[in-house]
């Protein structure tokens, strides 16, 4: 074997002893850093705003930050599942609106309805909406952006037809339901607890179940997933159903928190939710990211908005700040990713031979 290509390849330097451990630590750090980075940014934001405006770091104010982020965080968890599989779900705001109005109507007409039942119904409605998205994407072979853009309008349209200009008012809702949005258990708001449970449960499933790992596989390399016997269609469908069900849950909690609900509830949430996931390090091309990151992203976005309001910054600049943050997050991801890849590749080539 004396082909010219071989003689042209420079002989690599002698391999160092098993360098994998370091490569692993490096990558693990980079992944942690992603979430650590958000925590850091969050701390910095609260600190700086707190110095400028001490009221911002009062217990009540911080509690509000967490409360405001809870519903977005729950939706961002569902969105993460969808984005992991290289899809997107921008119909979640409309699903939330639909479920919110349903919960409000049900409870003002039947004040004795058990709250868990209302929650289950809200999630079922959301899940059904998600199923429609999933079926259109997997069996209809229509890009998710187009499908969910369509259902965004459809679900919102249904909400308008259904509400017919009416709105649900807080006075007509039972107190025990409204308490869900305001009261706390051992000092932690119930809404925040909901978000915690959702993040932890889905996070653990993604980490520890075979099905969870398959979400990553599909997004990382769809063709390889097919060859490995992963039932991609079923998984993608599941992602949309979970995203829809969590948007449904978010809708019920929305009603509990705000009391007043009309057909426009949750308008524009989809953008915040996608932004939260992306800021939280969920790769838009699928295959990497975590629900923890997405939830932290929701918290960071919410906090920035609050901070800018507290600091009396013009509404235009609030939007611009969020947009800037989004671009910054993507730029950092790209940069870290490239550096990481280069480092890993170097290690491989040094070891080869």
């Amino acid at each position, binding site marked *: 074997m004396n082909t*010219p*290509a071989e003689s042209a390849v420079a002989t690599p330097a002698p391999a160092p002893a*098993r360098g994998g*451990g370091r490569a692993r630590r490096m990558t693990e750090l980079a992944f942690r850093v992603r979430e650590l980075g958000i925590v850091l940014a969050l701390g910095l934001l609260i600190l700086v705003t707190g110095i400028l405006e001490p009221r911002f770091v009062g217990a009540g104010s911080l509690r509000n930050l967490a409360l405001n982020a809870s519903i977005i965080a729950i939706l961002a968890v569902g969105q993460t599942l969808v984005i992991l599989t290289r899809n997107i779900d921008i119909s979640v705001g409309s699903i939330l609106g639909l479920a919110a109005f349903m919960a409000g109507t049900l409870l003002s007409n039947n004040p004795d309805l058990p709250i868990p039942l209302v929650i289950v119904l809200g999630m079922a409605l959301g899940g059904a909406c998600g199923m429609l998205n999933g079926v259109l994407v997997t069996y209809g072979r229509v890009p998710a952006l187009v499908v969910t853009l369509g259902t965004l309008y459809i679900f919102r349209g249904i909400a308008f037809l259904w509400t017919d200009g009416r709105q649900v008012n807080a006075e007509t809702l039972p107190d025990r339901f409204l308490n869900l949005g305001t009261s706390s258990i051992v000092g932690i708001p119930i809404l925040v607890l909901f978000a915690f449970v959702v993040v932890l449960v889905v996070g653990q499933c993604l980490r520890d179940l*075979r099905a969870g*790992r*398959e979400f990553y596989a599909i997004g*990382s390399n769809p063709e390889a997933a097919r060859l*490995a016997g992963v039932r991609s269609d079923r998984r993608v469908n599941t992602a949309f159903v979970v995203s829809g069900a969590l948007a449904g849950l978010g809708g019920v909690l929305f009603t509990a928190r705000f009391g007043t609900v009309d057909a426009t509830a949750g308008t524009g949430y989809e953008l915040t939710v996608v932004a939260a996931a992306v800021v939280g390090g969920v790769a838009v091309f699928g295959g990497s990211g975590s629900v923890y990151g997405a939830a932290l992203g929701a918290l960071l976005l919410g906090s920035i908005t609050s901070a800018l309001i507290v600091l009396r910054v013009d509404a235009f600049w609030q939007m611009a700040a969020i947009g800037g943050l989004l671009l910054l997050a993507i730029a950092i991801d790209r940069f870290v990713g490239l550096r990481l890849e280069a480092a890993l590749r170097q290690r491989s080539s040094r070891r080869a031979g």
Partner: protein
Amino acid sequence: MTPDAPTPILELRDAVKSYGAVRALRRGTIALRPGEVRALVGENGAGKSTLVKLLAGVIRRDGGEMLVDGEVVDFHAPPDARAAGIAVIYQEPTLFPDLSVAENVVMGRHPLKGGRRIDRTAMHEEVQGLLDRLGVRLDAERPVRGLSIADQQIVEIAKALSFDARVLIMDEPTAALSGPEVERLFGVVGALRDRGAAILFISHRLEEVFAICSTVTVMRDGEVVHDADTADLTTDELVRRMVGRELTALFPKLDSEPGPTVLRVERLTREGVFTDVSFEVRAGEIVALAGLVGAGRSEVARAIFGIDKPDGGTVDVAGERLAPGRPLAAMRAGIGFVPEDRRQQGLVMDHSIQRNVTLTRLKALARFGLLRTPSERSLAAEWSKRLQLKYHRLDDPVGFLSGGNQQKVVLAKWLATHPKVLMVDEPTRGIDVGTKAEVHRLLSELAQKGLAVLMVSSELPEVLGMADRVLVMHEGRITAELSREEADEESVMRAATGQLELAA
């Protein structure tokens, strides 16, 4: 085949597969026995990949039989093949870059602990064990992203081992490997064979076939034409069996008097793709760039035209140096480039014939930045007539035309620029026989009128029938320059498979 040979683990008998009207596989007959390393060789398009895809369950056969351990079976999807113990390692590894090596190996079959949760410790130990058994230093917990192709192939082999694959099919595994990596791979293959696995090894490197394979199956034109022990064959015989075909098609090659040098390429290099490529093409000459798929021929053409920027070397057109990496400069200097994939790169399929023909002449046809339809039409009509394009109306979308007529539109588009050099990549791929001859006649006529033609082609009859000179590439280098008289199927094939070095 001796009568006392053990039952094949996997056997294919008279398998047939067609894609539309194209018969990709006419007769696929192959048997893989335990402890056997079998080579599958053949020219580009001989049907090797189709046969592999059948064995892997990626596509389904139209006819014939498949047997596993002597029993008739039918694979509906890749997991069926895997369940039967068949692992395929494709040229391009199919891995998940975002996941760890261990997860790539066990995807869908993770070891579990209580509550159906994944047992990470067990997973990492299991995969690390496999990697250690393969004798490679690779960490099971690192992500696949950033692994070299060689290491990725090792991960694929570990995957095959993890489900006790008894048949390992490797599609040109060494194409992207360096010397030491190839040897490491062969070490692993030998160990698998000794354990009783059957291995099917597809390679264009004949020296490797003789080095590690005990038996060889030769395919040609979709048929298995020969089956023998490698010990009973010489390289020459093998090459002859691979190409052994009559020059059936008639090529209307016209004599032309070569003029001055028009295209001069010197030491053109693009790292990792091709190295030190130097040649010249004279006016009135057809020079063929032959070689196997992946030898770097199309890449050279792309670099000359400036689509990819070369790392070194120069291109001169009619004595003028070309700025590297600038297609517009190349066009202005008088190069036309008919790309390999005309549907994607050569044409705007939804646009009309007229629009496609005039795409390269927009500036000349416009007045104050606006296109004038009458002049567009007359230009398109003129070229359609010259090339004997068969069309209904010039306003019809190009997509309506047959492959051959589409190719004529691409040619017209470039000829309208009055080029000095025309580069055509696979001029007749996917074109029916009749139109093929027309395209050949056209190229020949153009050369006779003084055009310099550089033709990249994988079809040997085309190369031999059309070219005044043949340059053969092997692994990114020109390994032979043959005159029309010297060039025959064997000499070209030998150079293309690295059996013949260019006399320095």
